[in-house]
């Protein structure tokens, strides 16, 4: 039970609240700023998801696309992503880090190299958006061997039979996609319905930490707080965009948003 991801969930549970997971794109809007954002939100966050930006993202909505393009335009490389993760992990208040992105970047880097680099940078988990089960079986196993949690995704379209198989092969954390949508869509399903699907998943294996993501904002987060964990991504990327457009400091603004999110579920 000393896996940092499991520990993060345990801590949150002790305080009777869901774990708060944030998603930010590495290098958005600069390498320095994205590290500063991570540092400043860390105290209110339980797990940090860091996106490695890709220029052909088939499952991301407008907000995260904007962040990703911004980071790529600023010249972010995979080595920078690892550097940001590493520097963040060195800080006193750091939290477990899960990298999230598309398979082609891992493929080009080489699976083994990528995992080696994850390990040496202190990365704790991986989400690969376009590598579903069972295609991800081999890679997930490799992750496990390297003590990296591979996070399996589940969606409202996942059949019950499939749910069981995926959960059986899952590691410390699973991720339930709240609705049929790319990231950052408006929540088009009622929180009640989302939680009922979530409970189905928990019934299959109550011990697995299951987070809910997609479409979660300041407005909706409180209604879902019975989950093990909640992920907020696009709302944060949106705040960065807004701050930049208004020539404000994204670090302080994002920090405020995250503090509010945390407040709503505490």
């Amino acid at each position, binding site marked *: 039970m000393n896996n940092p991801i499991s520990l993060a969930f345990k801590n949150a549970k002790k305080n009777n609240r869901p774990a708060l997971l944030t998603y930010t794109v590495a290098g958005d809007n600069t390498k320095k700023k994205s590290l500063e954002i991570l540092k400043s939100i860390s105290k209110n966050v339980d797990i940090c998801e860091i996106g490695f930006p*890709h*220029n*052909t*993202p*088939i*499952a*991301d*909505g407008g907000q995260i*696309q904007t962040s990703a*393009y911004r980071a*790529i335009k600023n010249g972010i*490389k*995979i080595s920078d992503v690892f550097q940001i993760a590493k520097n963040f992990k060195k800080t006193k208040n750091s939290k477990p880090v899960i990298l999230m992105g*598309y*398979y*082609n*970047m*891992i*493929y*080009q*880097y080489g699976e083994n190299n990528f995992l080696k680099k994850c390990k040496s940078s202190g990365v704790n988990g991986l989400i690969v*958006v*376009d*590598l*579903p*089960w*069972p*295609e991800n079986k081999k890679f997930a196993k490799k992750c496990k061997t390297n003590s990296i949690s591979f996070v399996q*995704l*589940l*969606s*409202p*379209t*996942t*059949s019950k039979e*499939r749910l069981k198989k995926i959960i059986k092969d899952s590691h410390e954390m699973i991720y339930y*996609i709240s609705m*049929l*949508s*790319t990231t950052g*869509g408006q929540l088009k399903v009622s929180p009640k319905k989302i939680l009922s699907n979530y409970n189905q998943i928990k019934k299959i294996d109550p011990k697995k930490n299951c987070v809910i993501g997609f479409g979660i904002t300041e407005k909706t987060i409180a209604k879902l707080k019975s989950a093990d964990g909640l992920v907020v991504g696009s709302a944060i990327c949106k705040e960065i965009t807004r701050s930049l457009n208004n020539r404000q400091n994204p670090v302080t603004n994002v920090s405020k948003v995250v503090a509010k999110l945390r407040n709503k579920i505490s």
Partner: protein
Amino acid sequence: MKLKKKIPLIDQHDKLGFWGGKFGGSYIPETLKKPVDDLTKEFKKLRKNKKFLKKRDLYFKNYIGSPTRFIKLENLSKHIGGAQIWAKVVSDANGGAHKIYNATVHALICKSMGKKYIVGDTGAGYAGKMLSMAAKKFGLKCKIFMGAKDIKRQKPNCDAMRKNGAEIVPVTTGSQTLVDAVSECMRYWVSNCDTTHMCVGSTVGPNIFVKICGWSTAQISRELKKQIKEQFKKIPKKIKLINCVGGGSSAYGFWSEFIDYPKSQIELIGVEAGGPKKSKLHAAPLSRGAKLGVLHGAASYVCQNNEGQINETESISAGLDYPGVSPIHCFLKDTKRARYTYATDEDALNAYKLVTKFEKLNPSLEPSHAFAEAIKIAPKFNKDTIIIVNSCGDAKKDRDILRKRLGRKI
């Protein structure tokens, strides 16, 4: 890596959908797993269903207008000298390009699955135009995703789409061409897959879309095989089948019946878009040594950088302006069954000039790439060699580009 005989190439993949163990597959978000599985099951059922096949054949004949002509380009052959140059005039098909086969089949599948909405991507606008036609024919609501740059340069096809009642969604991200249109279309499908059917416009994307598209365009070579036998009494000893390759749907359709023949008898030549002569950018992943990568749900050779970011491409031909290519063409390349080369923008324009000067044929910029290769190699052979070019699209859509580049009205 080996090709099997007597099994259609589209079916020569493993359990996870890979051809040759590494090309293709289904790299899709979890949300799309079920719709893709449903579609896979439906297609498996339908392609064995006699009633469905009858329906397909009926629409191919009466709606699309099969067979399209197979003609000798006498004047061009005489002018160039060497091999005989023939054309399979697939642009005769309703709508003016081969994209109508895939669009019609997808509309039939969509109907059979009880979905009322259909969405698709388009580059040159042909896939979009044909999908909008088929949607109108079968009473489906249609949305077409198209790069903003392509909307500008292929206006005639956009006009046609709108006339057919389709909504064109301009895509303004990235390079604003086909690659971004496909991404946006997939994103839309992720959000609406419960009510909406997606048609991928070429033999690219997750495994099932490669199969459906290839199954549809295969009509071209079924016709051609018959026509060759009628024309020459038997299959001649030396044939070269030349086709342009963007995603690769027309090339697969043109070749599928001939893949089992020995290479020495029937050579398959794919011509990619080399881009402007002076530019470093191109859309020729097969012939210019791109690395294997994952794009739009499939593994194939992809124009990309070392980090796995997809490169911008450049070509005068919007239909070939795509950084990836069909996994089945990667398979044909690595098994050495087909040979791939490229033609530059200038080569294609010159070929267009020559073909239209000597023949009553008006090939679009895509097949003009194939004609460029035919013109280049014909003099190396004698008249026993039969070169057949798939003239898979009509140049009406290119009128603005041709006017600008050649100063001529078409």
